[in-house]
């Protein structure tokens, strides 16, 4: 009997602790890319505080693709995406009658990093990156001198994100010319911290990942200036991305808002908050904010109900934000 009492007491106390919050359930549901997550999380955190918790926001991570799956089933209000919506996903959404508004929220600068002790790489061209990463390089381009005859006769150690990541998709698209087309014999990890560790411990390491991971590990890594189409070698930085000189590795990241959900005042308020505070908050989590005007134009698009994507369901590399915002959107 004592035991029965104990079990009851345990169940009761664990339940009693939860006895705090019971408001009307106004929930904004967000899911999708892990790359966009830090920005959206920051916005969600501040938004909830600003609204005194009257509106609740949940953010999940199921990847850009996984996020769109839920979004097109109508399970979420907003989908985080580190790449534009694809043809197949557009079809899914159309089938379920889900219309959406595409809003760029920040830039991510893919950063190519090497070990700080590496002195021979001063800059990299896209052609050199392609030589290193294209599928044909497997078992052929194994040493630095295979890429550039002036580089040493040392084995390269490559690190990169796994094939499920939007970063991988974008990098391969930008460098090799075809999304997901990469050599397979490199150390792949979905956890960017593993890549940071790998490159920082190996003199011959080279890897790529989002800018935020480089900024946090500046003492352990060296970023490589990338030669853009104008022939300038540019280091990734806030200014370079905004000026549009860090190409082709700067990419916009997006949120997709369901048009149906936008009719709900809490979702609309959240999006407005995102567009007014997005610049400051994305900077805080080490992403590159869009120019202020871009957020204003995006909010205008929301108000006017500009539905659809401006990409037409295919990936594109090196588009500037001004170009994006001027384009006609299609569902």
């Amino acid at each position, binding site marked *: 009997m004592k035991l029965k009492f104990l079990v009851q007491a345990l169940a009761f106390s664990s339940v009693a602790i*939860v006895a705090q919050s019971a408001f009307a359930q106004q929930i904004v549901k967000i899911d999708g890319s892990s790359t966009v997550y830090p920005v959206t999380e920051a916005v969600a955190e501040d938004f909830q505080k600003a609204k005194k918790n009257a509106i609740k926001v949940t953010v999940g991570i*199921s990847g850009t693709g996984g996020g769109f799956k839920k979004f097109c089933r109508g399970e979420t209000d907003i989908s985080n995406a580190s790449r534009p919506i694809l043809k197949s996903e557009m079809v899914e959404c159309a089938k379920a009658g889900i219309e959406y508004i595409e809003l760029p929220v920040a830039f991510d600068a893919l950063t190519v990093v090497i070990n700080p002790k590496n002195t021979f790489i001063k800059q990299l061209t896209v052609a050199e990156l392609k030589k290193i990463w294209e599928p044909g390089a497997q078992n052929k381009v194994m040493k630095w001198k295979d890429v550039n005859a002036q580089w040493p006769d040392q084995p390269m150690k490559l690190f990169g994100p796994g094939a499920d990541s939007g970063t991988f998709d974008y990098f391969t698209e930008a460098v090799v010319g075809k999304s997901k087309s990469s050599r397979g014999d490199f150390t792949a990890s979905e956890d*960017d911290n593993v890549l940071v560790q790998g490159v920082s411990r190996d003199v011959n390491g080279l890897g790529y990942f*989002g800018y935020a991971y480089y900024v*946090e590990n500046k003492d352990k890594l060296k970023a490589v200036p990338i030669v853009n189409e104008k022939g300038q070698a540019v280091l990734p930085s806030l200014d370079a991305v905004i000026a549009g000189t860090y190409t082709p590795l700067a990419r916009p990241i997006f949120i997709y808002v369901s048009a149906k959900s936008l009719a709900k005042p809490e979702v609309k308020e959240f999006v407005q908050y995102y567009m007014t505070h997005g610049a400051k908050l994305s900077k805080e989590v080490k992403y590159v904010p869009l120019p202020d005007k871009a957020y204003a134009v995006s909010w205008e698009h929301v108000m006017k109900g500009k539905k659809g994507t401006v990409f037409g369901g295919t990936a594109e590399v090196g588009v500037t934000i001004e170009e994006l915002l001027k384009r006609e959107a299609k569902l």
Partner: protein
Amino acid sequence: MPYARDLKSIRRLIAAHKRWDLVFACCGVLALMVGLLTFIALFVDMAIDGVPRLNWDFFTNFPSRHAAQAGILSAWVGSCLVMLVTAFVAVPLGVGAGLYLEEYAPKNWVTDVIEINVTNLAGVPSIVYGLLALGVFVYQFGFGQSILSAGFTLALLILPVVIVATREAIRSIPVGIREAAYALGATQWQVCKDHIIPYSSAGILTGVIIGMARAIGETAPVITIGALTFIAFLPPSPIKAEPPFLSFEWLTSPFTVMPIQMFNWTSRPEAAFLQNAAAAGFVLVLLTLAMNGFAIWLRYRLRKNIKW
């Protein structure tokens, strides 16, 4: 002298055998140490990183982008509630199934097939349960991405463990007890209710808690059914000020659990979040150890009450 030579060779033989004994004992200790030392090294490393981060705020704060303000409130409340549902589902189903298989089921090939399958189910990767649950609980039954779905999923996951533990416990009860009860005219149900269940409850509870200790660390199936990463509010309170005082709204609430929070923190760029992850991991390990300790204590207590 043949005798002396014999004695010598016998001694040599004995010495050789003892050497083998020693070699095997050393191998055994080594094998044990590999596992044990790895765990201790990991645990100590985690404790060194995480313990300085532990304070009251860490338990009462929601997740945040500022590592120093981030806490595990939604995660540990979520974990506890999911475990509550898991226990409520797994115990009746598991004990019922075990009891039936052991006491009621006819011994034929159908029962054998079921037995083999139950044992094999314990080895199915947890992600498979997650996918099954996504189809059945989340969409088919319409539970949604809720605490209820997660509880059912994890209950399913630990069901084989509970069933096997129940059967082991029942099997250890002497046949004489049953026969004595039957001799006095008890029905099968009376035997189960008054003798089998009380006497086996120690073993059953141990099995349940060990199963729960496994379930609390599961990430894959919970992510599959849609656990969230950022959630800065708690499920609605189960206790209401007005009648009927109890509310089950929390069952349908979105949630997150400790391992997910931890995983999210380990993949952050800022080093301070790694510290948070270590602290959360430390709490999780302590929770698991506490559950196992509780199981041992319970077994000890309940065993003491059994008087045959």
